[in-house]
């Protein structure tokens, strides 16, 4: 595939240096402390998750990592480059998918990627990028012609125009149905296999457990816990925590599928077919 990871930054000398270093980072808006002194390192090749409820400070943290917001205090380094001091150099190593950001209506998918590439001073392989997110047959489509899942996949392709070793994804699967979400997870895993480092924020625990090598749980601007998902689970069990287990023969999802006549793949269920034939009588 054309979007192979460039050599050199996941092995050798690069391995000793974190892909991302966040040191004692603070963000204050007026009298409100959104981020209150967080520190963590992300190693090359990792998928690192920032978990937390809305308002935990995840987006503020990612905005400071991208240099979109200045930190009130603390430091962010991308492969050793201080983003506050060398913004352009650090951003050249960074691919971003941001929340609440959009693309131009008047450009085709191919043109959007070319435009963003030009903003990094590079000429991206748009065919390979669109092929990677399964939109290779639609280079001349406009964004508004795509479904929500396709748009999110396109945003992922757009995050790769500069062939970045570190990719930041801010709640990449928000608003997607379960099928589209799983497709996106598979794409993110392939990015990791290509050698890229990924930092993603999410409030879906399943997503974090499924994808992330390590997670930092954020709450009210601080990191409440940081480890592998399994280690955090074991840590909780060790405190004597026991989850209440309720076994039912069906879930609300089963009810939903029965009533709407759809499976996750869009196949009609037997229940719906019976309902239809009953209705036709």
């Amino acid at each position, binding site marked *: 595939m054309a979007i192979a990871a*460039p*050599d*050199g*930054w996941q092995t050798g*000398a*690069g391995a*000793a*240096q974190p892909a991302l270093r966040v040191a004692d980072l603070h963000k204050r808006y007026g009298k409100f402390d959104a981020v209150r002194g967080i520190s963590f390192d992300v190693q090359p090749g990792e998928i690192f998750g920032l978990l937390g409820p809305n308002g935990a400070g995840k987006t503020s943290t990612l*905005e400071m990592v*991208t*240099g*979109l*917001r200045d930190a009130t205090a603390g430091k962010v380094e991308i*492969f*050793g*480059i201080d983003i506050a001091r060398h*913004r*352009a*150099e650090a*951003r*050249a*190593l*960074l691919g*971003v998918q*941001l929340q*609440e*950001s*959009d*693309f*131009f209506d*008047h*450009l085709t998918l191919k*043109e959007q990627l*070319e*435009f*963003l590439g*030009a*903003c*990094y*001073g*590079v*000429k*991206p392989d748009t065919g390979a990028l669109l092929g990677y997110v399964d939109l290779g047959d639609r280079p001349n489509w406009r964004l508004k012609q795509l479904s929500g899942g396709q748009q999110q996949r396109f945003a992922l392709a*757009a995050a790769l125009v*500069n*062939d*970045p*070793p570190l990719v930041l994804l801010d709640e990449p699967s928000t608003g997607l149905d379960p099928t589209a979400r799983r497709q996106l997870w598979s794409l993110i895993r392939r990015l990791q296999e290509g050698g890229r480092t990924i930092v993603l924020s999410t409030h879906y625990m399943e997503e974090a457990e499924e994808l992330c090598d390590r997670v930092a749980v954020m709450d009210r601007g601080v990191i409440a816990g940081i480890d592998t998902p399994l280690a955090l689970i074991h840590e909780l069990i060790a405190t004597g925590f026991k989850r209440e287990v309720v076994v039912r023969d069906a879930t609300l999802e089963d009810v939903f599928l029965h009533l709407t006549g759809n499976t996750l793949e869009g196949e009609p269920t037997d229940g719906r077919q019976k309902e239809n034939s009953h209705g036709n009588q």
Partner: protein
Amino acid sequence: MATSEAILAHGSAARRTSPPWWSGLVAATISEIKSLYREPAALAFTLGQPIVLLVILVAFDFHTTLPNGKVVPYLDVLVPGLIAFIGMTVGLNGVLFPLSRYKERGILRRVAATPMPTGSFVVAMIVSRLLIALAVTLITWVFGVYVFGADLTGSAFLLIAFATIGSLAFIALGIVMVAFARSEDDVAPLMMLVLIPSILFSGAFLDRSGLPDWLHWITSGLPLTFLTDAVQQIANLGHGLSDLGTDILGLAIWCVGATILAAWRFKMA
């Protein structure tokens, strides 16, 4: 720092074309030009506006007296007035609506996360709008002179060049308004705030000599008053740049003032 250098060399540096400030500026200019011709309704409005206004205003069949005492048909002062007015609307509309939409929808935020400096994007907006201003000024001049028969005695080149460059003041003003607007909804009222006094008091459509002294004095500082006065002097009196010192100074003050405000307040994200 050696590792960082190696990363740069192995990553995007391998396919680097030119510095982001330059390649981004060129790409953003092309993108903005595409945004204009790919929206047929907006394009028709922009290019057709002067023709529609000419068709309507040519119905006012009366004569007016120039500062040199010469009596000429209204059309002869209307065409340069319209050229100035169109320079203003292209400058203001062309920046206000798209830029506020880009800002509200987070498009600017996405662009701001790249290494391209904000200035490159702003310059791309300015260059693309100047090209449109040039096209619309030319259309107005061609239709005014060759279709409707206006008799413009001055240099056509100077008229068109001055009106096009004069629209810079309004482009800068548009960027300032976007910087101060809290949302896309604020933009239309802000535009009316400039548009209404400009239509009524700048001299583009109505003779300023009938205004009371105090209103004449206040509205002599409007940017469109300077631009209208300059293009009418060029077109109707055959004046050159050396006669337009006050108008050039007035427009330059608006332009520099707006640019300073925009540089201070305008943010992509």
